[in-house]
């Protein structure tokens, strides 16, 4: 492996170095985006907490006649809203999500609403039909979430789907993100807070209020899930790129060692040849 490959080793070192520059840059971009994404995620938390209590107060208001949003149906057609990444190179972030859904979707006919470019790419090659899609997770607005929420509610009302599930990645910490499947509709009464306010005055009336507020609540859920997923994506990318940069560093070190060894042995060989020539 010595002498002849000196030039090859030099070339390899150079190529690994340029790869390392890219991974390093991606890591820095991901870290800075992660900061913004986390702030947005934190800002959406109080809304979700307050809106959830309010929604359950309204949904369980009429104990006798419960809304059809609360009563589960037999599941024949399920719709997933899948929030994945806009880009690759984020470790197993995207793959984990798709695998989880593949596993979960075996028991019923399913269709998807992919959010994020990677999700659209993946599902355009899968047998699950795409209802509608959103190109970018980054900077997904509350209004855009409202459109999706309106659309799924309409289809749910028509009986097109019996269950709507939101699939996203929950951000726990920079090192830990979890894929989550959250049923949106029907509203899962087991998730209701223990103490709801059933005696209250509703204006115009509980049903109308639920019709009005449910789309906003669902939009809020999708929005906060998107914020979580985007933060998770950035965190996953940061970690993946960090280890890629480290690996590249190790490789360069190893290659430099081999390069020096090759150089040394070529010098030794030259010296031996000169000495051998002089002895003649």
């Amino acid at each position, binding site marked *: 492996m010595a002498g002849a490959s000196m030039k090859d080793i030099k070339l390899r070192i150079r190529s690994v170095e340029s790869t390392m520059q890219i991974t390093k840059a991606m890591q820095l971009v991901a870290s800075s985006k992660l900061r913004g994404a986390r702030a947005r995620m934190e800002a959406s938390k109080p809304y979700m907490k307050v809106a959830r209590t309010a929604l359950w107060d309204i949904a369980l208001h009429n104990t006798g006649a419960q809304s059809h949003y609360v009563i589960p149906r037999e599941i024949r057609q399920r719709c997933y809203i899948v929030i994945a990444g806009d880009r690759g190179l984020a470790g197993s972030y995207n793959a984990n999500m798709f695998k989880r859904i593949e596993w979960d979707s075996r028991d019923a006919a399913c269709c998807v609403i992919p959010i994020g470019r990677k999700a659209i790419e993946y599902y355009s090659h899968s047998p699950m039909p795409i209802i509608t899609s959103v190109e970018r997770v980054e900077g997904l607005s*509350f209004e855009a979430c409202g459109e999706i929420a309106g659309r799924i509610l309409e289809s749910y009302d028509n009986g097109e789907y019996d269950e709507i599930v939101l699939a996203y990645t929950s951000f726990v910490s920079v090192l830990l993100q979890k894929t989550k499947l959250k049923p949106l509709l029907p509203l899962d009464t087991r998730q209701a807070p223990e103490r709801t306010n059933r005696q209250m005055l509703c204006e115009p009336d509980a049903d109308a209020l639920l019709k009005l507020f449910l789309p906003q609540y669902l939009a809020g859920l999708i929005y906060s899930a998107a914020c979580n997923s985007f933060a998770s994506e950035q965190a996953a990318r940061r970690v993946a790129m960090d280890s890629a940069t480290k690996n590249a560093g190790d490789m360069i070190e190893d290659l430099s060692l081999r390069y020096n060894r090759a150089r040394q042995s070529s010098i030794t060989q030259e010296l031996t040849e000169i000495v051998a020539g002089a002895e003649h």
Partner: protein
Amino acid sequence: MALIHLTIVTPEGMYFDAEAQRVIVRTTGGDVAILPHHIAYSAALAEKGEARLVEADGRVRRAEVEGGLLHVSNDDVQVITNRFHWKDA
């Protein structure tokens, strides 16, 4: 003096979370003022309307509110809205 605890939230963040004397918002049925000791109450907010609130120290503030829900229980008043911005300052 009795006070209400007022929380104003949008998906983008929390705008107010403190004691207040009273809050007036536009619901789909017209303007409603919430004072301390109000009964449990829920109402849809108008697509676009002005909110006025009287802070604990008596200062009056105005804001623009777009849609959402007003939710009152046990002197906890929550304005859950899509968009909110202060008209003063």
